């Protein structure tokens, strides 16, 4: 993870395929686990933990979107809507049937997967730009339906309060408890994604991305795998929506509008398309960006601006920087933060004895 041997010194296949190539790798994984499972939740206060929770939710969604965009090469500008499908499915189940959260989570994910597969159907005929526009239409249509069908949205405000999840008799109400709850799903999502990509299905996804005609010729059923990619990715999105709903305690379509779809696309582009670690970096980066900007502007903005303009300026600076970063990464570093991370790692591989 962090360290690397400074050459290829392996002599057996077992050594090559080992999960931990060096003893220190084991320690690095352990250290990261301790950091996320003990240090972060036990030292941060509620405010920072709520930010950490937002990051956790974003990671699940970004990893899912990366399966579709990064690994399979299909564009989706409709992931915000898939999240809302998951969120409203779970909220309705929880309120109407009183079902426990594992059921809601699974149902939300599956419902989103079904809707995602339907929206993905045009991908069988069209790709690239046309698919992007088709999923954009999906976003608007789903949003409109949720907003206008009162059976789903539960009234004029289109927001449904949801009770906190509970494990046994314990209600997960504190930010710390929610953090552990979400972290479990982050780990599941990451492990699930890494294993998916190593599997037959994942290889098929990558083959379709790299050259769809060649993939078809070597016997990959493109129709099936494209729909599968949409379904899996939307399943992640649905789960993200449910998790976000449980985190907020309310399902509201305004949390899943077009801007959210764009946010998630920005995460995987800035993080790095087709990389698990990149999704994580991107999710952290995009989630923290508005918070850091607001803090900085509130802290230092008075030097340049008077308070009135500052209030007006903060959201605009956020939007501008967000867009500028997307453009910057696309032009300068298309492989994203993940590439920067690799460069740093490679530099330190032979440091301090380069040459």
């Amino acid at each position, binding site marked *: 993870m962090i360290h690397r041997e400074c050459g290829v010194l392996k002599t057996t296949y077992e050594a090559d395929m080992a999960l931990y190539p060096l003893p220190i790798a084991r320690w690095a994984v352990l250290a990261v686990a301790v950091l996320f499972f003990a240090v972060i939740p036990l030292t941060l206060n509620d405010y920072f933990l709520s930010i950490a929770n937002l990051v956790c939710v974003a990671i699940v969604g970004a990893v899912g979107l990366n399966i579709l965009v990064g690994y399979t090469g299909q*564009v989706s500008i409709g992931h915000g809507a898939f999240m809302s499908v998951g969120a409203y499915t779970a909220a309705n189940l929880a309120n109407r049937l009183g079902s426990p959260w594992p059921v809601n989570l699974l149902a939300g994910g599956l419902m989103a997967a079904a809707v995602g597969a339907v929206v993905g159907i045009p991908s069988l005929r069209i790709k690239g730009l046309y698919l992007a526009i088709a999923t954009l239409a999906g976003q608007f249509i789903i949003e409109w339906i949720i907003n206008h069908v009162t059976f789903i949205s539960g009234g004029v405000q289109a927001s449904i309060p949801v009770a906190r999840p509970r494990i046994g008799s314990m209600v997960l109400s504190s930010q710390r408890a929610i953090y552990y709850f979400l972290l479990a799903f982050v780990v599941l999502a990451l492990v699930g994604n890494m294993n998916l990509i190593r599997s037959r299905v994942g290889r098929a996804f990558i083959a379709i991305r790299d050259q769809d005609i060649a993939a078809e010729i070597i016997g990959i059923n493109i129709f099936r795998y494209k729909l599968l990619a949409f379904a899996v990715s939307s399943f992640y999105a649905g789960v993200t929506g449910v998790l976000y709903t449980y985190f907020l305690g309310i399902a509201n379509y305004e949390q899943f509008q077009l801007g959210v779809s764009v946010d998630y696309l920005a995460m995987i582009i800035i993080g790095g398309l087709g990389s698990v670690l990149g999704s994580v970096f991107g999710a952290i980066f995009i989630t923290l960006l508005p918070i850091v900007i607001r803090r900085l502007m509130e802290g230092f903005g008075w030097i340049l601006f008077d308070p009135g303009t500052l209030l007006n300026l903060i959201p605009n600076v956020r939007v*501008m920087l967000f867009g500028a970063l997307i453009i910057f990464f696309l032009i300068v570093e*298309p492989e994203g933060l993940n590439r920067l991370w690799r460069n740093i790692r490679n530099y330190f591989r032979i440091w301090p004895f380069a040459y």
Partner: protein
Amino acid sequence: MSDAVAFFLLLLSNGVMIGLMYALIALGFVLVYKATDAVNFAQGEFVMIAGLVVAGALDAFSAPLWVAVLIGLITMVAFGFVLERVMLRRLIGRPVIAVVMATIGLASVLRGIGPSTLGAGTKTLPLPIPDDPIVLGPLLIPPIQLLGATVSLIFLAAFGWFFLKSRKGIAMRAIADSQQVAMAMGINVERYFGLAWAMTGIVSALGGIIWGNLLGVDINLSLVGLKVFPVVILGGLDSIPGAVLGGLIVGIVENVTAGYVDPYVGGGTKDFAPYVLMILALMIRPYGIFGKKIIERI
């Protein structure tokens, strides 16, 4: 004439006018796509910025209208050139998703720049035309819509002529056909890319003035850009007549469905119906009514 027929005709005429005004904005999208194969997801933001510049010039310098319009046009043309040079030229040859995301990023930047430099409040953009609708039998036509439709038609015809007859237009069509062959024929492809973006700037400036007068100038003006996609998909991404026809279809469909369906579902059909239509079009005829059939069989 019965009331039902009159109501329908009213919706229809309204749809035609609005549709032609959509066509003007869609034209900006088509021009760029035709010449440079780039997709502009920031078309609505172009319109918003143009509206803000013109309204700002009227407001701040209390300039006469024609000066403000001129400022708007010059700003947008310069903006188009610079944008091509700084951003889009570097993205040539990259996958579609890169250009799509870059223009989405650009949209975001413009949404931030607009309100923070030119003010966040809704500005008016007064034009010297009467407010009272023109009555034609059962039809009520607001003069601004008539003006918008006329300007649209003039510019659509002008660009049609430009592409068919003028030397530059023919060069652009050659580039759209094959960039390599165009280069081999001695056409300076990069300069024409800049020109295409500048032309989009002109169209966006006009769109900004007309739509800005109709809706008021603030950040929400950029939402007009979302209607561009149904229009260009229906008409064909690279076709100027397609933009007109697509605009008309979208304008009529959204007005007629809104007129008949809105009372039952509580509004919002206008934003919904064009997209349903677009999905159908994508299923049946993805390259649009007049578009080039270059969709690959997958």
